[in-house]
Structure formats: structure tokens, C-alpha cells
């Protein structure tokens, strides 16, 4: 790893990271701060839930726990919004952290320095990993603080599992972004494919949960393998899937590295 390039990458992405981190932290604080109001309306919310079509509630991952416990409530929003927001940020950064150099013409400057291409790619991936950990770590910390402030009897094992699963899920999206950019033209705006990948994965899983006939669609979604919502106060850690996700991420990054090593910089 090259420390000069690493520092520059962090500096280059700091503004974007700060903005996205602020968004997820504010969102986390907002949803947790309004939970006490919802929980006070426990019976009314339960009635409202029962009036919702069952498929709709399932698709959104809502059940009685959504309104009766803060972790059930948080889990619903965590799966729908927070993972999507963090995933969009890290996957789009992953897609551009190398490709942007080509698109802006700066790849020529970078690749004519005395650093191997492999070292440049891994340095950029390390910087990406650091940004990922920063946003994910700060969001997790803000959620812990929010739960402590606004919740009572927080089910911490469920919270931990949820965030471990979320970590691997976002890791998968991030690696997918990097892989995508190694195959697509550097001139492409990656935001569309990245959002498509994350939303696509989410909605495939939502549809598969809502409509039994097409439950097989869930197999094509990473959300299916890394569950984020508790059932009856239990969410078991799926270690095998986490390990599998790590292998997939490693393979995606290895393929991307191979692609970048042999890529022509036409100028």
C-alpha cells in the first residue's frame, strides 16, 4: 500500500463521506427519536398494521414488533433506508474510486509514478474500505446512542446481529460497485447501475416475501441471505452466509484487480 496515495484518496473523498455520514446519522437520530411517540400509540398502531394488506406489510418487513419494540422498529427502517443509503454511497464510491481516474484523465499521471498498478489498486481499495468503516462505524455508534436515549430494554444481541449482517450486505454492494466499474466504460455514470443493483436486490427480496408464488426470486437477492429483521425477538447470526459473503467480496475484488492490471489507458 502507498501511504501518499492512501492519504490523498481519503482527503479527496472526505467531503462526500462527511455529507453521506451526516445524512445517515441524522436519519438514524430522526427515526429513533420518534419511536416513543409511536410506542405510546401501541394499540392504534397495531390496528393500523392489521388494516394493511398482509403482503404489503411483509414486503416492508413490518410486523407487530415494528411498533412494540424499539429494535423491531429500528430494524424495519435500518433494512429499508439505512442499508440502502450506506450501500449507495459505498458502492458508488467503489465504482468511481478507480474509474474516476480514467474518466478525468488523471490515470495517466497516477500510473506514470513509480508505483505498480497492483499497489495503486489495493491502496485505493484500502481507502474505500476505510471510508466504508467510517460511515458504517459512525452510523452504528449513532444508533447505539439513539437506542440508549430513546429505548428501554433494547435487545442488543438482535442489534449486533443486524449490524453484522448489514456490514456484510454493504460490503457485498461495495465490492459489486468495484467489479462493475472494472467491466463498464469509465465514461459511464455509475450511479444508475449502483442504485439499480441495491434497489433491485431490495425489491426482489420484498416481492419474494410478499408473494409466495414468486418466493424463489429471493434467491437472487443478497437481502435474502443476510436477514435484518428479528422474528419473535430473535435474529440469529448466519456465520456461514457472512463467510460466504466475504469470499464473494474477495473474489469480486480479485477479478477487478486482474481487470485493472491489464487495462489499457488509452488517453
Amino acid at each position, binding site marked *: 500500500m502507498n501511504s501518499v496515495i492512501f492519504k490523498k484518496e481519503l482527503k479527496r473523498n472526505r467531503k462526500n463521506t462527511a455529507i453521506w455520514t451526516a445524512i445517515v446519522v441524522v436519519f438514524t437520530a430522526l427515526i429513533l427519536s420518534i419511536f416513543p411517540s409511536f410506542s405510546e400509540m401501541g394499540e392504534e398502531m397495531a390496528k393500523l398494521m392489521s388494516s394493511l394488506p398482509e403482503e404489503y406489510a411483509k414486503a416492508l418487513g413490518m410486523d407487530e414488533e415494528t411498533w412494540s419494540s424499539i429494535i423491531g422498529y429500528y430494524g424495519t427502517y435500518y433494512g429499508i433506508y439505512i442499508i440502502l443509503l450506506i450501500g449507495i454511497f459505498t458502492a458508488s464510491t467503489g465504482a468511481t474510486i478507480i474509474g474516476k481516474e480514467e474518466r478525468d484523465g488523471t490515470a495517466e499521471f497516477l500510473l506514470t509514478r*513509480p508505483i505498480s498498478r497492483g499497489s495503486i489498486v489495493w491502496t485505493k481499495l484500502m481507502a474505500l474500505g476505510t471510508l466504508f468503516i467510517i460511515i458504517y462505524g459512525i452510523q452504528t455508534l449513532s444508533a447505539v446512542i439513539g437506542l440508549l436515549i430513546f429505548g428501554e430494554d433494547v435487545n442488543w444481541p438482535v442489534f449486533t446481529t443486524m449490524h453484522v449482517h448489514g456490514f456484510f450486505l454493504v460490503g457485498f454492494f461495495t465490492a459489486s460497485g468495484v467489479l462493475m466499474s472494472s467491466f463498464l466504460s469509465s465514461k459511464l455514470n455509475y450511479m444508475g447501475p449502483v442504485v439499480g443493483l441495491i434497489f433491485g436486490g431490495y425489491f426482489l427480496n420484498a416481492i419474494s416475501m410478499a408473494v409466495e408464488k414468486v418466493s424463489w426470486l429471493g434467491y437472487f437477492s443478497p437481502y435474502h441471505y443476510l436477514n435484518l429483521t428479528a422474528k419473535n425477538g430473535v435474529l440469529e447470526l448466519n456465520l456461514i452466509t457472512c463467510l460466504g459473503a466475504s469470499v464473494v467480496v474477495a473474489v469480486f475484488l480479485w477479478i477487478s484487480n486482474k481487470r485493472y492490471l491489464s487495462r489499457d489507458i488509452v488517453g
Partner: protein
Amino acid sequence: MNAIELSSLSKFYGNQCGIESVSFAVKKGEIFGFIGPNGAGKSTTIRTLLGLLTATSGKAEILGMDTSNEGARIRERIGYLPSEVDYYSEMSSKELLLYHAAIYKVADAEKKIQELATYFQLELDRPIDDLSYGNKKKCAIIQSVLHDPEVLILDEPTGGLDPLMQNRFFELLERQNKKGVTIFFSSHVLSEIQRMCDRAAIIRDGKITAVEDISTLLSKQMKMVRLVTTSVNNIVLPVGALNHHQSGQKHTFDYVGPTQDLVIWLSSQSIIDVTLSEPDLERIFMNYYQS
């Protein structure tokens, strides 16, 4: 020992030829010209040398190291000045040059940058995006020499520079060369090659058509002659005249041969006016090979 050596280097983009079987050697301490019209394959050759493009076949060495697997070690010892300057828009010139210096671990970087910036009249604190093409080029020149490279690879280096800065740049190159730096000078401007280089390779349609001493090239070099004679009579053209056209008293022709012979011939003619000019490269190439 050769500083740069290319052996049958080829680069194809699918079926399209970028360069084919390019071979030549640049001696250590030499200023070597690489000349050809736009699209001839100069930049492709340089980009393949630098590892930006993967060669389809053949071999290239810089300072005795294979460019295909020792790229990083080679780049420690070379400086590269690209034809198109694309730098990080969010940086100022100073930040970019300090970034470059940090990668190369240049001692006294700030002082060196300041000296070179003063020499080239470059404002260091302005964002790169706000700089004119010429100023970006100055920034590129400074980064190419800041780390005291042993070999300088220059791709169309004077584009965007005004005549004063071009002169300063050439003086800088001469000083570098006196220190023993090998210079590989790619250009489509023949006069720059003539001024700076000892030898030159000529590339056309991706193939090397000649590697010559500049003195040999000069002796074969063509002039475009326009003259107005005192009468409409035919004139006896000098040896080496090509493509003669006459319209009344006006004559135009290309001349390939010693300039002194041309001057002697001109002095024997009854002339009202004469213009000698350097024709464009395509014309030179055409006549160079005809002759």
C-alpha cells in the same frame, strides 16, 4: 549502454494497428527525436513504453529493465511529460507538485518547486482547473524534472507554450542533458527536433521509416521555394528541385539538398522576390522518401 531500446514493439487494438514492429535504440546521454505526423503512433509508442498500454508483441527496455515487468522501478528513474495535461482539478499546482514530490520522496521539494515555478512564471496557488493550457503545461514540465530523472520522455512538450517559455524550456533541457540526462523528444514540429536532437526516428502509419542523424536529415531536408522572376521565361531548376509549378513569373517548387547549393543557384537567377519556407511534415515525408 542504451537508455531506451525497443525491439519489434507492436500494439494492436483488435485488428487496428497502433504501432508495428517498432525498433530503435536511444543511447545514454543522447537527445533523441521522435518525429511523425499526428496519429503516426508516437504517443502509442510512448504509452507502451510507460506501461499505460500493454504491448501486443515485442520488447522494450529502459535503463536495461524490461518495461513489461519492471515498470515501477523504471518509473523511479524517468520523468514523463505528457502531450495532454489532465491533473486533479481540486488541487492547486503547488499541491499537485508536492503530491508528486511526496511519491518520489524528493528532498527540498518546496524549494525546488519554487525555483522552477519562478523560472517558468507559474502561479503555484491557483487551482489547476483555472490554469490555461500553457500554464498546465508548465506544471507538467516542472513535475517531469522535479525528481532528477535519468531519462526524460517528452510527448509534444511545447504545445501551449509561448516562444519565450519554449526557449526557457529548451534551455532547461540543455542543462538537464549536460548533467547526463537522456532525453526522448517526441514532436511533430521538425524545427524543434532540429534544434534539440542528435538523432531522430521517423514514424509514419505506426512504422519506423528511418532512424537518422539530424545532420543527415538536414542535408536531405526540403525547403519550399517561392520566387518571382523578372521574365516569364522557363527557368533551369537546381538539382534537387521537385514538384515545380509556374504561373507567369511566379514559380514554386520543393527543394531537397544542401541549402548552400540553393543559395548559389538563386544568386544566378534574375529574381524580384524569393521566399524560403519549411513545408508541413506530410510534404517533407513525401519528398524525403521520393528523394
